[in-house]
Every structure is written in structure tokens, then in C-alpha cells.
């Protein structure tokens, strides 16, 4: 994981993970993720985890920690390049947590719901298919 004392700014080529903890956030038919996964409410930002300096097990551990804390099932994650998140008014900012130095926020969301939805459609299009946790693949 990133050194908590030296958190670098996010580069456009970096990959980000958005964890999926609701079965309705992906399509069972083709494992593509739905735009709903990228609607930021109730906050003004959307939580993601940077891949940078993290191994695959560490990326999954960060997701499992969130799911455990929220008492939810971790269905998987969708990965998206930071460049694809810089759309309209959005930007990506490093926001390290004590237990996750790789945490980042997608910020700058418009206030109008229809504008949020239009952006969410673009993020879902740019995101990977749902990646299943290692425990499911095993």
C-alpha cells in the first residue's frame, strides 16, 4: 500500500477500485456494473481505493474491511482508470484513511440529479466488469 507519510497525488493513468456491496449494482447477465454504483449521495464525493503500490490481496483486503465494517457482503469490485473519472466537473483527490492510505474521493459532483446520472452512466461505461473476490473464485 502507499506509504501513509508520503501519499502522492493521483495520476491519470492510475486504476481505482469501487467496491460493490449491493446485488443490484451489477447485471447478473454479463457482470457489467450499473450506473447506480456511481451516484455519490448522501455525500458530495464518491469513495474509491487506489491500486497504486497495492497488491491484489491488499486491494481485496481494503474492500473486505469496508464490507465487514458496514456488515455487508462484498460482491466484488469494479476498476476504473482515474482519467475516465475526470469528466465534466469531476476530479479525483487522494483522501487517505488511517486504515487505508490508498483511499481517494471522486469529487466535484454537480448538484442536479440528472447531471449526476449522466456522469454516472459514463463512469459505468468506463468501468470494468465486476471482479469477484478471491473467496468466490477459489
Amino acid at each position: 500500500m502507499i506509504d501513509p507519510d508520503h501519499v502522492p497525488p493521483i495520476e491519470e493513468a492510475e486504476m481505482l477500485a469501487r467496491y460493490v456491496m449491493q446485488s443490484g449494482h451489477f447485471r447478473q447477465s454479463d457482470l457489467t456494473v450499473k450506473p447506480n454504483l456511481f451516484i455519490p449521495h448522501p455525500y458530495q464525493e464518491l469513495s474509491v481505493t487506489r491500486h497504486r503500490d497495492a497488491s491484489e490481496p491488499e486491494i481485496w483486503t481494503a474492500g473486505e474491511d469496508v464490507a465487514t465494517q458496514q456488515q455487508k457482503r462484498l460482491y466484488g469490485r469494479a476498476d476504473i482508470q482515474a482519467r475516465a473519472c475526470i469528466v465534466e466537473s469531476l476530479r479525483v483527490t487522494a483522501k487517505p484513511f488511517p486504515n487505508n492510505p490508498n483511499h481517494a474521493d471522486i469529487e466535484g459532483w454537480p448538484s442536479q440529479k440528472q447531471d449526476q446520472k449522466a456522469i454516472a452512466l459514463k463512469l459505468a461505461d468506463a468501468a470494468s466488469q465486476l471482479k469477484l473476490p478471491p473467496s468466490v473464485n477459489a
Partner: protein
Amino acid sequence: MTATILPRGNTPTAQYLDQTSQDMGHHFQSSATFSKLPALNELVTVWEECKRPNWDGYDALPVQSAALAYAYLLVEALPLGFPLPTIGAEPDGHLTLEWYRHSRWILSVSISPEGTLYYAALFGNSDVRGSEPFFGDIPKAILNLIQRVHIA
């Protein structure tokens, strides 16, 4: 949303025609509802999953029964022959109806507990977005988008 059929008169023929019209009306109404059952069932399932706070693990608001009622009416108001949506929920407590061909050819309509429809569609590199009040009939702009998603 059932149509009222005005009586044609008191003659046996008029009464027969009235009764036949009523029967056919009920038949078409129940057929229409039946054909929408998959979407209506999914609607209830999603609502059951999302009616409590934090249903998404990111502090989502619960989906209120008012949003469910509006979404139900919206599905019911879909004209016969229109493709059915898949159902979802958003963290602000809205229900969503989605018409999807692929990730770049898609329409998503959110239904708020106040009965406002917020929509966005992606057609290749261009998008369409807007909002409309819902008074029981699906706005023409949204019907046009549903058709566009499913026309090659």
C-alpha cells in the same frame, strides 16, 4: 388508470355492447398487468432489499414506499409493446428503471418519493438528460428515449 366507458343507451343491443366493452377492457387491463409482472415483481424485490438505511454499504438512504408507489404506476403506464425495464435503487432513496442495450446505449430513469422523474441516457458519445413531473402518464420525452434505446 382504467378507461370509463360511457353507456350507449338502454336498448338490449346497447347494453350488450356496453357489457362487452367492459369485459374486453378488463381483459386488456389484466393482460397488460400480467405482461408487466416480471418488472413489477422485481420492483417489490428491490424495494424489500433497499428499504433500510445503508443498504449499499455507503450510507444510502432507504427507499420510501412513496417512490415504490410512483414506480409501480410508471411501469403500469408503459404502453403495451414497450420493453420492460430492469429495476434498481440509488443511494438518495430513488428507485430506477433502466432500459439497457449495452453500456453506451442506455436509459436510466430515477423516481423520487415526490414523483419527479430524473433521466439520463447515453447514445454512443452523446447524452440526453432532464427531469419531468410524473402525473400518471409517462412523458413523451422518456417514451421516445425508451424507443431509441431499443431501435437499432
